[in-house]
């Protein structure tokens, strides 16, 4: 039987190497630059270098805008991929922060109406960036193990709440402004060395579950957080995402390698589709672990316990 295809939007932040390795297709959304240029969301640093892009973004956060692929764009990509009878798994960025899932769902319906033989399943990842990308990689691996479209879809629906984010977002001015954080108004922008620890909540939004003073203390708390939430690290691929925090990500990567010996660990870029909404301050690891509690109370308790222990 022919394997099904996987289609993601550009916020999965999988670079060309991963896309080729895992045979994952991408339908880009749109970004608008301060000079009103409209571009397909890039998935490599060609027009700008990473540093240039985030420096420009920091200067003019409102000048940059993003839009997910619209229904027609999703539909076109879906039609192309299913034209030869291939089944399709479409995955989107969290519906908590984007309309992509709605658009993709509508598009899938349209395509299946026009082509009754087409089979498309749409999954809301409830994640963004490399967290979403990691989930797509898991889907591709299960596909390679021979699981069917329905089996993989069911696995994702049952397990997406196990994809963790352990890291900090130390410039909240972006997320707050763009409404991509729970209770965004409650947080102020840059915090002079204070590291808000962010985890995904049940609805696919990033929530601050703790705040730690200084990078050193934050690394220590994060290592403990990972230890208490990860499952079978030695069998895992871990992604570390960083928007403009490469140096810190390198340190973090080394610490994770030394303590958890994961099968693989990569530092991933966050490209403009997500980066514009997150800003330069993200540095986080993504991995598969224990299910996240509905109100994040267990996750908050882990951070609090660790902070009290250090006092």
């Amino acid at each position, binding site marked *: 039987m022919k394997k099904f295809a996987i289609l993601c939007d550009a916020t999965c932040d999988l670079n060309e190497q991963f896309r080729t390795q895992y045979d994952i297709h991408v339908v880009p959304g749109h970004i608008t630059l301060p000079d009103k240029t409209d571009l397909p969301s890039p998935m490599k640093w060609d027009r700008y270098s990473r540093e240039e892009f985030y420096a420009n973004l920091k200067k003019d956060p409102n000048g940059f805008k993003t839009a997910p692929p619209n229904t027609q764009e999703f539909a076109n990509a879906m039609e192309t991929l299913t034209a030869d009878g291939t089944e399709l798994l479409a995955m989107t960025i969290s519906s908590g922060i984007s309309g992509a899932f709605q658009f993709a769902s509508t598009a899938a319906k349209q395509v299946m109406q026009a082509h009754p033989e087409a089979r498309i399943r749409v999954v809301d990842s409830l994640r963004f960036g490399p967290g979403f990308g990691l989930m797509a990689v898991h889907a591709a691996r299960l596909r390679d193990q021979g699981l069917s479209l329905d089996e993989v879809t069911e696995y994702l629906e049952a397990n997406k709440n196990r994809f963790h984010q352990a890291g900090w977002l130390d410039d909240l001015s972006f997320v707050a402004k763009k409404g991509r954080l*729970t*209770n965004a108004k*409650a*947080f*102020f922008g*840059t*915090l*002079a*060395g*204070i590291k808000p620890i962010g985890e995904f909540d049940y609805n696919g939004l990033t929530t*601050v579950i*703790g*705040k730690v*003073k*200084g*990078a*050193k203390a934050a690394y220590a708390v994060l290592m403990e957080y990972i230890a208490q939430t990860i499952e079978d690290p030695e069998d895992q691929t871990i992604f570390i995402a960083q928007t403009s925090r490469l140096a810190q990500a390198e340190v973090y990567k080394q610490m994770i390698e030394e303590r958890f010996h994961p099968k693989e660990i990569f530092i991933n870029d966050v490209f403009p589709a997500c980066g514009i909404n997150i800003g330069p301050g993200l540095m986080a690891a993504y991995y598969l672990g224990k299910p996240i509690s509905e109100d994040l109370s267990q996750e*908050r308790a882990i951070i*609090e316990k660790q*902070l*009290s222990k250090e*006092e």
Partner: protein
Amino acid sequence: MAIRRINGIELERMLRSGLANLQQHEEEINRLNVFPVPDGDTGTNMCMTLAHGLQNAVSTTQINDFLKTLSAGMLLGARGNSGVILSQFFYGFSQELSRSVLIGPGELRSGLIRGYRMAYDAVLQPVEGTMLSVAREGIEHIRAQITRSSGIDVILSMYIAEMRRTLAQTPEMLPVLKDAGVVDSGGAGFILIFEGMLKYLHGEPVESAEPAVRETAAPSPSEPDLSLFDENSTFADGYCVDYLLQLMNGGSYDQHFRLQNYIDRLQKYGNSIVCVQNDKRVKVHVHTKTPAYIIQLSQKYGEFLTFKLENMQIQHNEHDRETQQVKNKPLSVVAVVNGNGMASLFASLGADKVIDGGATMNTSAQEFVAAFEQLPADEIVVLPNSKNIILAAEQAAGLFKAKHVTVIPTASYAEGYFALAMDMPDSSDVSRRIQQMLRGAKDVVTVSETTASRDWSYHEIRCRKGEEIAFLGGELVCVNSDWKAALIDALLMIDGAEDKETGVVFRGSGVSEEQEAALAEAVAEKLPLLELEFIDAGQEIYHWVLGVM
């Protein structure tokens, strides 16, 4: 002939003379305050504290009633550390005499002892060489000589003489005084009060050159917003009525005015009654929906000197409007700042109530209590942001029982900033939030810089007026003709400075962006790891305040 007994009215007059004496030397006491920047205000703080007590005090011959109302007013009006200590002294004095109708030699002795003990208890770490030592030794050295036949005036003379002796010793007890070549300002102010009291007994009362109560920094109540009450409004709260009634002689007026009887009848028409009679005048505060009955009742006995009436529903609606944003919040934060820039900064950081402490006027316990009352949250956190205000905040927290108040003893804006930055406002776990703010304020090193307002010396360090001086944790550490050099040198004196990674910089008023760029460059050169967040805060006094962690 020796004076063996004094009553409440006499004590009040003595204290008015004491206050006037202190006021005459207020500036002198301010200058004694050893701190080369102009936030030395011990004299002002003590004057305002005592004045507030006298304003609140009920004139009565009963010594216990007078002292109770005096000390309650002082506790609330206390400003600055010296004001808090002074108010605690009188609170102790009042507690000791709570059953006394008159003061005799024995009462005076035990009152002065209880007073200083209460003052010591009020301070977390009592420091010798201050008002505390002066008050303690003053009475301890003479208590054995006081007998039942000692005159009040004689005891006070001895007390003052002993206190002066101790005051002269304060530079030996506290090196910071010796270095500056001054005696303790609070102790000096304390003695001035008792000197003024003694002068009254000697028949030479010191007359006040100024009104007993000064305008405070607190904003004056603005005109009510009349749009908040219209034909569809509910009238549930009634009127707040204040008046001063002159009891009249003459046939058409009832000559049998009895205060208790009058209060009983007022209670039929209203509540929240406060009624004080001073001879033939009665001052009344009452809340009522039917002021006509009260006017009618009062005119049986006399005529109004003043009469003020306010629709409380308007105040209520205004209050609702103001507190709407903070409604339903489980926890509110009160921060003390100086200047508009800092006020809006702290408000934007999430403080629910910002009190402008002013450049030289310390926030009183009463201003804190007023702020606590305004906030609907049951849990309140206070960030005093100055070591001169911590005690007053703690005093207010102790006085205010209606809500749970936590004072996070932030001694600088930088500590307050980090406390707020660590807060987790969306958490419903209030104790966790307080814990987070305590963590935020902890281990922040504050470095500040300004221009010396006078010549000064501290330990090995001397500065001349006009020189640039930098402080580390409140202590003068660097003097230089160049502000940047002074600041950088102070930064380099921080323990483990080269390993510090982050900090915040508050730019004061009158400091330019060019200077900010110059500072950023100099820091990058000397401390390359240190990343600074610059904030245009516009504070007065200090050109720069840096918090490094």
